[in-house]
């Protein structure tokens, strides 16, 4: 096989549909979550290690920087789960029959994710 075949697909020059953005964001949020697991395990560890570490975790989580990291992890998780549920529904054969229904469900993912992430933001700000 020739390894230097010309490739006639310049992604940057193509106008992508909403389904592409929902898909790439699902990947990006997945990669973010791979790293965020370390934050979540750290919090889980501190919450269960001892009564003292539980209290100092509470103090730590009142700092804006810690809240930002928790917000990032939860926002990525919220988006990833919502987009993932769309995949599972499509696996059941629902809404994958034509491009229009795929576009519609992609928009539904965007709207639901925005609502959930806004709620998470509000919850963390009021905390």
């Amino acid at each position, binding site marked *: 096989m020739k390894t230097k075949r010309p490739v006639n697909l310049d992604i940057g020059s193509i106008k992508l549909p909403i389904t592409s953005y929902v898909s790439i964001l699902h990947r990006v949020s*997945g990669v973010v979550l*791979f790293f965020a697991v370390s934050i979540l395990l750290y919090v889980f560890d501190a919450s*269960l290690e001892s009564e003292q570490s*539980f209290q100092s975790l509470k103090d730590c989580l009142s700092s804006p920087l810690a809240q930002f990291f928790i917000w990032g992890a939860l926002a990525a998780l919220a988006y990833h789960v919502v987009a993932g549920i769309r995949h599972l529904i499509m696996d059941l054969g629902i809404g994958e029959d034509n491009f229009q229904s795929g576009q519609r469900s992609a928009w539904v993912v965007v709207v639901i994710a925005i609502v959930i992430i806004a709620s998470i933001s509000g919850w963390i700000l009021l905390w």
Partner: protein
Amino acid sequence: MVKSVTSLSSSGLSNWMLQRVSALIMTAYLVFMIGYFVVNPSPSYDQWSNLHSSLGMRIFSLLTILSIAAHAWVGIWCVLTDYITVRLIGLKATPIRMFLQLTMIAVILFYVVWAIDILWGI
């Protein structure tokens, strides 16, 4: 058929299934946790550690971290094999991808051991 030594299972169909089953387990855990914090938004240390020291909860948490491990392995593997390719970044892609895949596997194993250490250290 080309097989990859760094893929979680040797079949794409098994990876596909693992990705879905692990997703369902993690979603169940997430729903449980949201429910717990809705009912009890600010648990005391005793309430929280009692919950997590019960056998049922330890098994549920263990299943969830194993799901995270499988799900991340399959997912990150897909991302790396899609983007760190010879076509996109040249011949150095293969050693870079191998390095990243092995690092990813090491991080996942570290997460699993860490989680087991937390769960059985309560």
